């Protein structure tokens, strides 16, 4: 399924089978908000080991590199939720 996800309300296209980290990076979105201690969040290892790409996805904290895009999925920066 290809379609669109939303980053802070902005539509971001995705390819069939693509994960959220990949779709966001292709759309030029590299900063995924801030970690609870203030560092920039974003893709680092891309294989589900570093927890760097955590985002809020439909209300829950998830690693974007392991999250397969679904039509209409709503993502936002994690915003200190996991403190």
């Amino acid at each position, binding site marked *: 399924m290809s379609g669109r996800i939303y980053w802070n309300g902005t539509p971001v296209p995705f*390819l069939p089978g693509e994960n959220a980290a990949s779709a966001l990076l292709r759309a030029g979105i590299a900063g995924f908000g801030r970690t609870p201690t203030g560092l920039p969040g974003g893709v680092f290892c891309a294989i589900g*080991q570093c927890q760097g790409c955590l985002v809020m996805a439909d209300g829950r*904290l998830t690693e974007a590199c392991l999250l397969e895009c679904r039509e209409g999925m709503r993502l936002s920066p994690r915003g200190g939720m996991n403190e």
Partner: protein
Amino acid sequence: MNEPVVLVVGAGLAGFSAAAEIAGAGLRVLVVEQAAAPGGAIHRQPLPGIAYPVASAVHRRRWTQVTASVRAQGDRIEIRYGCRFAGLDHEGTALLTGARNALVRPRALVIATGAAERVRPRPGWTLPNVMTAGALQIRTKTLGKAPDGRILLGGSGPLLLAAGAELVKGGNPPVAIIEAGRPFRHVIGSLGLPLPYLREAAGYMATLLRARVPVLTGTEIVRIEKRSGALTLHVESSSGGRTFDGDLIGLHDGIRASDHYAAASSIPVMRAGDCREALGARAALADGRAAGAALVAELTGTVPASAKDSSRIERERRAQRRLARIFGHDGSARLAALPADTVICRCENRTVGDLRALGPVPTDRDLRLHGRFAMGACQGRFCTEWVRALTDPSHAGSPLGAVRLPAHPIAIADLLDAGGIADNPSTGE
């Protein structure tokens, strides 16, 4: 059909070859893979409908063979993608999250979770668009095309050359590859590598030369800065310093086994592939098969014909040692000279200064309780090595504290949803 399954974690080379071996002896296998598709770190497949110009013919052939051996087992092997193993308790209960949350009681467990990249801390390594070289490889392989923008690769190790060649094939050659070691000085040493290694390396070098990608050896990355939207990489060699501008930086200083699931348990547990010992793709395949065969022997009492091929593993170990010598360089002075505000722990934003403030010989307790090193969400996967190197190099390989389960943060909702314990995760009984 409700006998417990053998649980295999990871759908890479080691996991798939172990699964095929175990199912080949008539046992039922459940493979769980946290990613949406199989392949692991090296055989990442292109997204559906995307051509795959990046992988070499040798790589493609190897992966085709492995997947065929899994398919040949029919429904004895069930594969669940988007499903993550969070750990095994001492009673043999495994927690799976993601695709279907479940607590299962497998009859045995094979952990084949692969390696993680080592990345030495450097000022600026936490900036957006600075990632591992492997992350760039994965993007290139899945999209069938290199990322846009000016790409720089740096650190040390043969993977940088592989990643560089893949970026060339993906249509966007890197601006430069910065290698701290001096691999090309070791011509004689290199000749001792097995032929397939030499062939692979020669292929990467030919691709890089054709695309005129500069490979700077004996050159260290000193820091990365963000300047007017782009990234500036400062490098140093014996002939002085210089800078490169880029949009995307891939760092890499080697790979290390990634096993954060250790637990003494009442069921047999095997480790296979790079998570047991980071020896690369060829070893992972043989190691998966060997682990599968050993498990079959343990569970059924019959030793499969393909039982442990230890000579293969030993050969790969020797080759990897030789490679490490060829790329070898002493990074300890660089590490010791890092500015105090350099981040070491990315999860908790702990710096070199924070580490020094713990005194000259901090105990593990100091490091964790007061320093908060290895206490973050990644459980020290990326900082432990450097914390050890800076405080107590004699304990280089040892973890900082015991493994804590779950092996990665999970949502409480998933835990609640997992419900009761099932012997057979397919039927939930």
